[in-house]
């Protein structure tokens, strides 16, 4: 009896040694709270109510996407438990919800919380708790700061990255131009301005810059446009939110002025900007995109778009394919699943951040072909490429190559 026991012990220790020597190559299951053999808990904070509730669609799309993944068997056999809360776009509420997710629901990661104020409010807490604040839904450039905030990562191209792309385009197409920049005097506008100058490089790349700012409280920016016209620049860069972009394009049209105009990706809505500005005034306006437009016929036979439409039909019938937020939610949820797949059986928070920082040329279905996500230990900005587009007729047409804000174009 005793001998048998000893044999058993020997066999066990032999197995243990074998396991130890084969090392980590043999998948060892490691979990932090929020992950187990059967489940991965993912937390999320969205403005389902309040002033930014239109973005709530993103959270709903993500929930539907994860449900589809679960229906197909989950990620490495584990079901995703997606817990999403409403913060009404209020920072104090976002703190409450983040704490609820981390301390009460004990989620593995907080994924894609939306809004610059809400994310700023929870960033310090998330990093102190060492819980990933992954793929935040905001365009501010401050999320790419792995040194100070190793637990926070962005997803979409930052405002600065986008501005760098405009700078690169102008350097190539309109060297030595006189560029007028009309920007909104807040963090949004200044982020673009900084990025644009960064993109031009030393001595503004030989360009002449005219900077003019407006306050978001001003009822009309017409006087600024008139002033800029008198200085006679070749290019007019509208760094403005939709309402002001529409006013600006309209006034330029009324003055019979024909500079090359660029509007930011924030203000490319046909319904909210181009139509109010006047379709004829908007012809030839430039911008840049990274997400496909479901109405654009060029994607009719695109495999990624087909997968997306298939998802909408089968798993999210109430979703609106025209709403860019739906395509956004799909793309970012797909990235999350990709990271979880890469983690394998090592579902610790540390490994999640490590894998999220090791994305290599990943292309979600809803991004424009050629735009790929890449990250590294020092690069926490997954998307840094966009493609230029031109407004023609009643819609945007992509043109030119994909431009990368980071490397050479």
């Amino acid at each position: 009896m005793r001998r048998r026991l000893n044999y058993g012990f020997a066999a066990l220790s032999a197995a243990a040694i074998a396991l130890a020597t084969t090392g980590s190559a043999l998948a060892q299951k490691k979990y932090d709270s929020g992950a187990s053999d059967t489940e991965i808990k993912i937390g999320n904070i969205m403005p389902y109510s309040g002033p930014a509730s239109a973005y709530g669609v993103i959270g709903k799309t993500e929930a539907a996407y994860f449900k589809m993944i679960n229906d197909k068997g989950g990620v490495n056999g584990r079901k995703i438990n997606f817990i999403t809360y409403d913060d009404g776009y209020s920072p104090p509420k976002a703190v409450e919800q983040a704490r609820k997710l981390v301390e009460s629901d004990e989620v593995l990661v907080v994924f894609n919380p939306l809004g610059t104020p809400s994310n700023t409010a929870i960033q310090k807490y998330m990093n102190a708790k060492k819980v990933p604040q992954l793929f935040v839904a905001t365009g501010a450039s401050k999320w790419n700061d792995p040194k100070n905030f190793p637990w926070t990562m962005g997803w979409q191209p930052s405002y600065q990255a986008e501005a760098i792309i405009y700078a690169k385009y102008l350097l190539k197409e309109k060297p030595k131009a006189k560029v007028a920049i009309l920007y909104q005097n807040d963090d949004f506008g200044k982020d673009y301005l900084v990025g644009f100058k960064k993109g031009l490089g030393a001595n503004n790349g030989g360009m002449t810059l005219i900077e003019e700012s407006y306050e978001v409280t001003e009822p009309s920016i017409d006087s600024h446009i008139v002033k800029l016209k008198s200085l006679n620049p070749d290019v007019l860069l509208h760094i403005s939110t939709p309402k002001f972009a529409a006013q600006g394009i309209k006034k330029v049209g009324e003055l019979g002025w024909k500079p090359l105009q660029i509007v930011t990706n924030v203000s490319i809505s046909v319904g909210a900007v181009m139509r109010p500005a006047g379709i004829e005034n908007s012809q030839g306006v430039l911008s840049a995109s990274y997400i496909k437009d479901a109405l654009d016929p060029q994607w009719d036979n695109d495999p990624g778009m087909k997968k997306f439409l298939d998802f909408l039909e089968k798993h999210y019938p109430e979703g609106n394919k025209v709403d860019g937020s739906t395509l956004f939610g799909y793309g970012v949820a797909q990235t999350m699943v990709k990271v979880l797949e890469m983690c394998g059986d090592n579902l610790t928070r540390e490994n999640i951040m490590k894998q999220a920082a090791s994305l290599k040329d990943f292309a979600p279905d809803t991004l424009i072909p050629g735009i790929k996500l890449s990250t590294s230990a020092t690069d926490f900005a997954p998307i840094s490429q966009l493609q230029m587009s031109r407004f023609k007729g009643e819609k945007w047409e992509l043109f030119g190559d994909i431009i990368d804000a980071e490397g050479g174009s």
Partner: protein
Amino acid sequence: MSAVQDVITTPAAATAAAPVTRARRLARFNATWTAITLIALIVAPLFVKNFVVFQMTMVLIYALAVLALNILTGASGQFSLGHSAFFAIGAYTSGILMEFAGVNYILTLPVAALICFIVGFLFGFPALRLSGIYLALATFALAVAMPQLLKIGAFEHWTGGVQGLVITKPDAPFGLPISQDMWLYYLTLAITLLIYVAAVNLLRSRSGRALMAIRDNQIAASAMGVDVSLYKTLAFGISAGITGVAGGLGAIAVQFVAPDGYTFQLAIALFLGMVVGGVGWLPGSLAGAAFIVFVPNIAESVSKGLSGAVFGVLLLFIIFLVPHGARQFAIILQNQFLKFKKT
């Protein structure tokens, strides 16, 4: 428990008991409940997660702001839909002093109170010319304007503009072996109790009676020799000052101030808290605050897309079933208690 019980008429007791014993019983009833609530508030944090302690801290903070509103509306009869503005001023005062001047967080609170008192007092002057819904609208304008004022470029160096300010959370002092959340909770509880007792005493004092006289009949009050404009502006100042303390505590608890945290929705929430708690009934502030913190979460758990509608339905139920809020509930309880004792 009966700070200003004359706002609504207490339903007559079923039978006329000897008035002396009835009053004594009521007092004992009230004392019992006060003690139970107090003990619950002190003991509960020891048994729950830190996150719940944080939520309870937020309840106390909002309770303080609702209490302030109650003094203004319940006692002096002036409406305000603008208390989010004072809350914001208090929060920014604390935040800026802590982050830029390195002032101890506790010392920032009296400063926040003082600044808000002055602002509220000054705002009280134009408010003198307005009453009822017009005053409500004027204060509403203040609430709508405040988030934008906080974004003004000239002050951006201090306010952080749209980005707001991140505040460092204080540790428990003297090496006490409790978490930051727990410490902040007990600190908030102590401050809330202090202000609550002060408020109850204020309303029982000469000044309190003067305020209520103004509320009930301004002309009669001034005929009695009450300086109407002084008391009205003072009520505004005191109310704003207390709200400022709440704002400062809120900033420390949340560790962040930004214009988006103090929109008019906060003002409406505070107003709602006051109505749900019972206008003019100070203990109701706690119930009202609990309502504005927890009920949106309940509504959200019922339906994500329709959380606003669910919240609205719950609110309608309350307005129809217990129009005087938590206070009515307390009175029903009281009467049941008295009846029970009689038999």
